[in-house]
Structures are given as structure tokens and as C-alpha cells.
């Protein structure tokens, strides 16, 4: 009997407690920086595309929502001819981000992607590319890749040694 009255009293006191509700459209929740939301393609510090079209993200994707076609420009630099993510299939697992060798594909804390038309959830490359370096500022894949592209020969990048001269016996 006493416990029933106590229960009712304690419930009544909840009137004066702080509300647990976040009134969403007006009030936004603070998302952690590592929240896995919308997928973006980031750029180099010199604003070149980071993606080299290696297909690892498409291979890692458990729901096969990524499709792309790699191609090469005249300087031997690979890039995706098209890059398409079907967000109506995407499960935001982040495996593509883990698989990416060039930090190009990244998941950002944004989930507000509602659409009335399902087809609008298919994002093309121009929708995915952002003018930012994302989570890895200053990272430039071609500077550390040991690969010859335009403006940089083998061994000229950061932390790179000149290629070994195979015709010489000297160390």
C-alpha cells in the first residue's frame, strides 16, 4: 500500500524532470565525429580527386550499392569515370571507408537524406565529390605512392627514396 503511493508520488515528481526528448527538426542531436552517415568522395590538398578507381570499396560493399568505372587521364593518373552509390541500398556499414587505400571515400555525420522519389537516392559522382580533404587533411596519395605521374617522377615524393639502380652493384 505504502509502496503504491510512493510509486505514484515518484511518478508524479517526474513532471519536474528534464525531458528526454530531442525535438528533432528544431533541435538537432549532436552526432559524434565518427558517425557513419552520408558517403562522400574527398579531394587532395591540391583539389584533385583522391579516388583512384581501385574498386576495393565496391568489392567490400556487402550490399553492392557502389558501382564505378576506372579510367586514366593523359598523365597516367587513374580516376573514376563514373562513381555511383545507391543510398536506398546502402547500410552505412563503413566497409568502403575501411577498404579505401587512398582515404577518398569517407562517411560523414549527416543522415538527413530523405527523398520522395527513390531514384533521387542514387548519387552520382558530382553529388558525392566534396571540395574538402575530409578526415585526413594534407594527405595526398600520389605524393607518397611512389608512382610516376605528371609533375612528379618516381622517388620524388615525400618520404620516398630514389629508385634502386639495378645496373649498379653499389648499395
Amino acid at each position, binding site marked *: 500500500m505504502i509502496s503504491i503511493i510512493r510509486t505514484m508520488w*515518484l*511518478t*508524479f515528481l517526474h*513532471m519536474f524532470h528534464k*525531458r528526454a526528448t530531442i525535438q528533432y527538426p528544431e533541435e538537432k542531436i549532436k552526432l559524434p565525429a565518427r558517425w557513419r552517415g552520408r558517403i562522400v568522395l574527398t579531394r587532395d590538398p591540391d583539389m584533385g580527386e583522391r579516388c583512384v578507381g581501385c574498386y576495393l570499396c565496391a568489392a567490400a560493399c556487402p550490399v553492392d550499392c557502389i558501382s564505378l568505372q576506372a579510367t586514366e587521364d593523359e598523365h597516367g593518373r587513374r580516376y573514376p569515370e563514373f562513381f555511383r552509390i545507391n543510398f536506398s541500398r546502402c547500410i552505412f556499414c563503413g566497409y568502403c571507408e575501411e577498404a579505401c587505400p587512398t582515404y577518398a571515400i569517407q562517411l560523414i555525420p549527416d543522415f538527413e537524406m530523405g527523398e520522395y522519389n527513390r531514384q533521387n537516392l542514387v548519387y552520382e559522382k558530382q553529388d558525392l565529390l566534396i571540395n574538402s580533404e575530409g578526415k585526413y587533411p594534407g594527405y595526398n596519395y600520389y605524393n607518397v605512392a611512389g608512382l610516376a605521374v605528371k609533375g612528379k617522377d618516381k622517388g620524388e615524393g615525400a618520404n620516398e627514396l630514389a629508385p634502386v639502380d639495378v645496373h649498379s652493384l653499389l648499395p
Partner: protein
Amino acid sequence: MSPLLIVICVLGGLLLIAPGLIWVERRLLAVWQDRYGPNRAGPLGLLVVLADTLKLFFKEDWIPPFADRKVFVLAPAIVVITVLMSFVIVPFSPGIIVVDLNIGVLFFLAMSSMGAYSIILGGWASNNKYSLLGAMRGAAQMISYEVFMGLSLMGVVLITGSFSLHDIVEAQRNMWFIIPQFLGFIIFLIAGIAETHRLPFDIPEAESELIAGFHSEYSGMKFGMFFVGEYIGIMLISCMVTCLFLGGWLGPAFLPPIVWFALKMFAFIGLFILLRASLPRPRYDQLMEFGWKILLPLSILNLVVTAGIILWNES
């Protein structure tokens, strides 16, 4: 006021307040659960009432092919009719009463017992296991709680010497009956909750065990009827408690009598909702045991002691 006007006012008021109570209940429950409740549609979310009603109207009004059609349609009407009939004898303030029957309390008890038919017939006509189980529980609960609901009132009737609710309220000019009849008040309140099968005594519907109990098969406006009946039932019990134990319209003169009545009534509606927010549902056998083994002896004891004191004072 002319009787017809009173009837229209009472009927209109009840049918307007009943859906409004949906909003009140949802907001209050939310407040007690650290939420906001419906606050989007209209000011303070009040238009949710309209949305709910419209939704009920436009839902498919479906009668299952295995149901007993006539009884199935009849059942939801019974609950609303009986509860509305009970309001005939409720004195809202001096003069605002549909009929001042000299057997008012008995009429109320009779009508609220008739409400049990709605549950039984609804559950039976649905031809569904859960509905039938709910109906059986509902019938047993209502009949057993009816017994000492009546007995707990008899203390008040003994002190007043009248079954008329108007006389009962007038007899409380010096002291509200909640003080001399505190036990009766508690028993009547508990029985009233069980009578309207509100939580925590919502054993006939018991969502977690019986889906929705006796109204599992109902949809659209027929379900709405059960719903409205339940809310009017809450109001009825609140009105009765107010009249019988809290001095009805009596109160300090700075507010009109009808306002005092409404205040007391809504305080009890709030209490009903608080009960729902805080207490878990007892098991069916616990409910029956509590009724027959505790409340019934207590109410008889209350009656005997009251009668004894009255006799002692007279002699």
C-alpha cells in the same frame, strides 16, 4: 434552465470532452514519462484530437465474416448508451441536473452494471479466442467489483438518508464525506477504476496478454465507441467520486459551483491517468483475490461501523 437545454449541454459537453481526454491523457502520460507527448498539430498539439477522430472515421469499418453481425454492431453502442444514461443523475451544480431521481445512486449502479453487457457481447460476438477471454475476465471483474462498489456507497447513503445525489451533495455542506467515509472513498475509487477497466485494472483488454481483449476485432468507429465509452466512464466515475465524497459543486464562493465541480472532476481524471502512468497491471487471480478477500470484507466492515455509529448517535 429548460430540461432540453440541459440535456443538450450535458450530452454535447461529454462528447466534446471525451475525445479531448485522449489529448489530456497522452500529454499527462508523456509529462510523467519525461517526454512531451503530442505537441505538433495545432497549439499544444490540441488538434491531435481532430486527427484521431478523423482517422477513426475514415478507417475501414470491418466486420469479420465469422462474427455474429447484429450483436457485434450492438455491443459498442451499449457501453456508450449506459454510461451516458448514468450521467442523467449527476448534479453538476444546483439546477444543472437532467433528472434528480430519488434513487439516483441505485440508477448509477444499475447502469454501470449494464456496461458489462457491452464487454460480454462484444467479446462473444467477435468469435475470437482473445476477445472471449477478455470478455470473460471483464465480466467477472465488473460483476465482482460491482458488489462492493455498491456497498462502499452505502455509508454515504446512510449518513445522508437519501439516494438522491442532490441531497447527498447538500448533506456535505459542513464536512465532505471523504473524512467520515475515507475507507468507503478508497474502496469506491478502486472499484471505480475496475469498473471502467482502466489501467492498472485493464484486465479485459490487457494488451500484453490478450492483444486488445474484448475489442480485438473492432475497428473504425465501432472501436471508437468503446474508446469514447471508456473515457466517458472515467468522467462518470470522477463525477460520482466528486459528488459522493468531495462535496460536488460545494466550495468557496469566489468560483461558481460548476467550476468547482469541474476542478474536482478533472483532478480525479488526472489521478486516473497518474495511476495508469505508475502502476503495473495485477494478475487476474490477484485482482479477484484482492476484490473478494480484502475489499469486500472492508466495505462490509465500513458499512457496519457507519451504521453502528449512526444508531449510537440516534439513541
